[in-house]
């Protein structure tokens, strides 16, 4: 026996269910939700033909042919059953392995061995860095950090290859990209610009502070570089591409990335060479606690920070516009 509510549409249960599913927006109508009309842009529209549109209209009919659909349905069913079996099996196996691990926070666990003790006891004397983790990744294990900066650089190059639209070769695609980018873009939005006026200098100064103090307090090149990159992205979103390209265009990004990686390579090679051949190197640990101490760590932090900031910025602009 069930009582059906005749006014179900307006009841709380229906609204809550629709909100969870994503159909219902409680503040719809009070916020601008749709793209601005075409008359706002003013300039003449560029006519183009999407060749793929004509093909894709017929695919939905052609996809449901007889022979292909039965095979596909059988394969999908088997795939789901096997997927569930494998997932449950892996979950049980891993949980059974966890039951054999040493207790959480045990000081006698096998991984707390003499390597960690050496890094902690000799770290300050040999590297001069108060932050032991930064001293470890930029002095004892600097090669790994160099490889990781190269991974960032290669990822940036790959995204450039995939998404770049060159103006000289293909002016039609360039026009299509610009037209696509102008949808949903806030043009001279007052709130965004006032907030960016206040926040962008703060973010960039805070990022520089985190990078420079990487060996004294928590932080370092990676987090500082991400903060500087976020500041640049906010500036770009608030003010548009023309203003940002005055100081952050393609040549600057290329020069900064390549220069930072080359400096890292040469500086650390000098350090490895003099250390391996027991020569006297001109780099000293310095007094711990100063900014200009810890030998090369400050300069390496700056290089890593520059590479990370340029990579994050170029990811964003490549997705937005197809160029840097």
């Amino acid at each position, binding site marked *: 026996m069930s009582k059906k509510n005749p006014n179900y549409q307006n009841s709380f249960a229906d609204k809550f269910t629709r909100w969870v599913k994503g159909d219902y927006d409680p503040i719809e109508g009070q916020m601008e939700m749709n793209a601005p009309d075409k008359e706002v842009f003013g300039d003449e529209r560029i006519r183009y033909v999407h060749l793929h549109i004509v093909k894709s209209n017929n695919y939905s009919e052609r996809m449901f042919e007889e022979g292909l659909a039965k095979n596909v349905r059988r394969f999908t069913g088997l795939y789901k059953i096997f997927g569930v079996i494998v997932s449950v099996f892996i979950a049980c196996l891993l949980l059974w392995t966890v039951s054999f691990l040493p207790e959480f926070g045990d000081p006698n666990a096998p991984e707390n061995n003499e390597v960690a003790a050496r890094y902690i006891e000799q770290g300050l004397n040999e590297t001069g860095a108060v932050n032991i983790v930064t001293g470890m990744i930029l002095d004892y294990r600097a090669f790994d950090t160099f490889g990781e900066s190269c991974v960032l650089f290669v990822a940036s190059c790959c995204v450039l290859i995939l998404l770049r639209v060159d103006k000289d070769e293909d002016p039609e695609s360039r026009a*299509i990209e610009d037209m*696509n*980018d102008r*949808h949903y873009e806030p043009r001279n939005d007052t709130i965004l610009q006032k907030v960016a006026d206040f926040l962008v200098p703060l973010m960039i100064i805070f990022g520089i502070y*985190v990078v420079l103090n990487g060996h004294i307090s*928590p932080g370092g090149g990676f987090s500082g570089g991400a903060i500087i*990159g976020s500041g640049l992205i906010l500036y770009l979103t608030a003010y548009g591409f023309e203003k940002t390209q005055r100081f952050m265009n393609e040549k600057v990004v290329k020069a900064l990335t390549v220069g930072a990686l080359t400096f890292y390579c040469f500086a650390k090679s000098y350090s490895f060479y003099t250390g391996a051949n027991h020569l006297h190197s001109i780099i000293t640990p310095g007094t711990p606690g100063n900014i200009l101490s810890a030998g090369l760590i400050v300069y390496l932090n700056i290089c890593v920070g520059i590479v990370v900031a340029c990579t994050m910025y170029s990811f964003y602009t490549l997705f*937005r516009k197809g160029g840097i």
Partner: protein
Amino acid sequence: MTELRIILLVFLLVCAIAVSFSKNLLISVVIYMAFSLIMAIVWLLLESPDLAITEAAVGAGVTSILFFVTLKKIRSIKTTAEEDIDE
């Protein structure tokens, strides 16, 4: 402290399950941003402040921004394609 750890870890699991069950892509990305933020607090409880700063800046910052920009690009390609069909 143990209770706080358990509550935060249960929140992580709930976020991960909610991502797979939500139908709207924008909501999935916002839930992923919350997941990254709670992960940064878990790093802090495990006494690693370097990881907390990096995860907060990179996970809840840059990765989520890239997701939003991808969604924008996909919707703008779809919108211009639909206008072309209409005309």
